[in-house]
């Protein structure tokens, strides 16, 4: 077909430069003459700032640790070396050793696995179930919406830790069980975000226009509503992951997360509690790691959200 060839000709040349140009303009920083920063921006896009990239870098590092924990050149996280007991950081153990003489760095790296898996799974569960419910409620309104919102309000009002304890007692302490339990806890929040965004999208004329062209309800939900709701919902995901990391470690601190000896950050902090007076680093090192991770998640999530937020002017 003639259009096809026309499109292909255009693809590499036109759309990309146009987009870059406008994003420079809006950031208003194009005047900076440093060719290096210009080059960096051409690769990464502009306007995010150094803090964003530091935070994103940290998250990448954590993700890499989780992914490659078994092949990284760290010691065995479960191997107690009694002579290293409560070693301070920067001795024979880079980040010190815990009360049983296990290497903290190695335990952090392996603990990252738990945090990453649980936060990803839990947020996905919440996003999938809560998001779908929220979109349906926002689109169909009526009795379904009222019933759903009432149920969600009840769940939100219930003390989450108690709910979590009950769930964990019921479905067990495996990695998947914990993810599922925390994921269920996220359904109400996601349903609300998705519903609120759906409500504003449904009022737009293009939804009515799609109906006026004979689109079915399913098609409208999938083609008109979902693509416009998914970005704000996804952007909320990173912030939610930060909270999941904290929730998981709270469970671990109570000894109710993934069972020992599997290292988790929360479990490490709980362990360090006993040695706080003589070896504070045992609790501090995992605390700082967690702090940095959650901070990065929030920071990156916030930045992405403000960038992808559906603005009136873009519609």
């Amino acid at each position: 077909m003639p259009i096809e060839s026309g499109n292909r000709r255009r693809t590499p040349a036109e759309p990309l430069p146009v987009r870059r140009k406008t994003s420079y303009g809006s950031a208003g920083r194009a005047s900076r003459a440093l060719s290096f920063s210009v080059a960096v921006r051409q690769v990464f896009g502009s306007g995010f700032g150094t803090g964003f990239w530091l935070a994103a870098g940290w998250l990448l590092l954590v993700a890499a640790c989780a992914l490659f924990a078994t092949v990284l050149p760290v010691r065995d996280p479960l191997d107690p070396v009694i002579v290293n007991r409560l070693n301070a950081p920067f001795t024979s153990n880079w980040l010190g050793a815990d009360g049983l003489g296990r290497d903290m760095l190695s335990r952090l790296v392996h603990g990252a696995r738990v945090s990453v898996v649980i936060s990803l799974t839990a947020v996905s569960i919440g996003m999938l179930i809560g998001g779908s419910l929220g979109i349906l409620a926002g689109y169909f309104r009526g009795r379904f919406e009222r019933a759903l919102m009432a149920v969600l309000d009840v769940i939100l009002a219930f003390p989450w830790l108690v709910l979590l304890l009950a769930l964990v007692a019921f479905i067990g302490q495996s990695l998947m069980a914990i993810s599922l339990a925390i994921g269920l806890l996220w359904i109400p929040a996601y349903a609300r975000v998705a519903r609120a965004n759906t409500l504003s999208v449904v009022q737009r004329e293009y939804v009515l226009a799609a109906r006026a062209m004979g689109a079915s309800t399913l098609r409208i939900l999938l083609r008109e509503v979902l693509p416009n709701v998914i970005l704000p919902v996804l952007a909320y995901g990173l912030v939610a992951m930060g909270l999941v990391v904290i929730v998981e470690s709270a469970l671990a601190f109570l000894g109710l997360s993934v069972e020992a000896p599997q290292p988790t950050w929360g479990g490490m902090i709980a362990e360090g509690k006993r040695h706080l007076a003589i070896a504070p680093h045992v609790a501090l090192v995992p605390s700082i790691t967690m702090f940095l991770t959650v901070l990065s998640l929030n920071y990156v999530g916030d930045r992405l959200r403000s960038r992808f937020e559906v603005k009136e002017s873009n519609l």
Partner: protein
Amino acid sequence: MTDSQHQTQQVPLLRVEELTVRLRGEAGIVHAVSDVSFQLQRGQTLGIVGESGSGKSVMARALMGLLPRRATHLMEGSVSLAVDGRVLELLKLSEREFRTLRGPRLAMVFQDPMTALNPVLTLGVQIAEPLQLHLGLNKAQAMARALELLTQVGIPDPEGRLRQYPHQLSGGMRQRVVIAIALACDPQVLLADEPTTALDVTVQRQVLDLLLALQRERQMGMVLITHDLGVVANRADHIAVMYAGRIVEYAPTSRLFSSMRHPYTEALFKSVPRLSDPSHTRLHAIPGRPPQLIDPAPGCAFAPRCPNAQQRCRRETPALAQIGDQHLHACFYPIGSKEVGA
């Protein structure tokens, strides 16, 4: 002319009879459309004129079956559409049956091109989708047709535009795309609900002329809804003036402008500023506001704002009466009648 065409007794393309729509509002039942009747022939344009809140858009949506069922308190009357020699009663169709008509039979152009296009889909996809859905074209065929449509609505560089997103186009261009989408499946009836209200004056004219040219070329029946008499003046074959959900005057365009009878039509006409007026001429405004349509008071809805209103107007609602060839109005004391004087 149009009159002689009209007299050849053909089945009208769209016939609306005593359409009445009541909506559930927060404060009560809204009498949005009352007893509206009109006919539309193939290749004709009907202009529907009235202030905001006169029920024009609700009527258009009712014709398209787009009013939310939850909010519809009552929908009465009859809307029949001639389809391939058969006559379909639209108000009796199920949602599923109605859906197959939207696009290939009935289509609608919306008021605000800024929100009528999905911001996350390319224009090509948005034009091609109804084609794939209704005409069963494959993607390549649909895209080829989309390209054709964009060319027809006068968009420069249509190939490039196919891959663009709505925010990359100006308002006028977007409205052209909205028109292209509406025309994609070759509808028999096109409802244009204030298609140019959101556009610049200079662009307005271009878009209206485009709509009219396409309507003539395809011999569609078109309902052109507007609040501006000037918009329909030399574009519509017939004009229906709506006030408070009712048609108050209906006539062939030339006849309406030469001998309008309803005081509301005259008031609308006078409120169009004219270039020929000397500068600093006071702009004519209609005093007061359109009535609220929740629990309307008895009597003519225009009476409180009408210069000719008398006792009777506040008690009885005037019916739409024929006063000449295809000229109807609903007024006890129309312009030029004895009781009012000149």
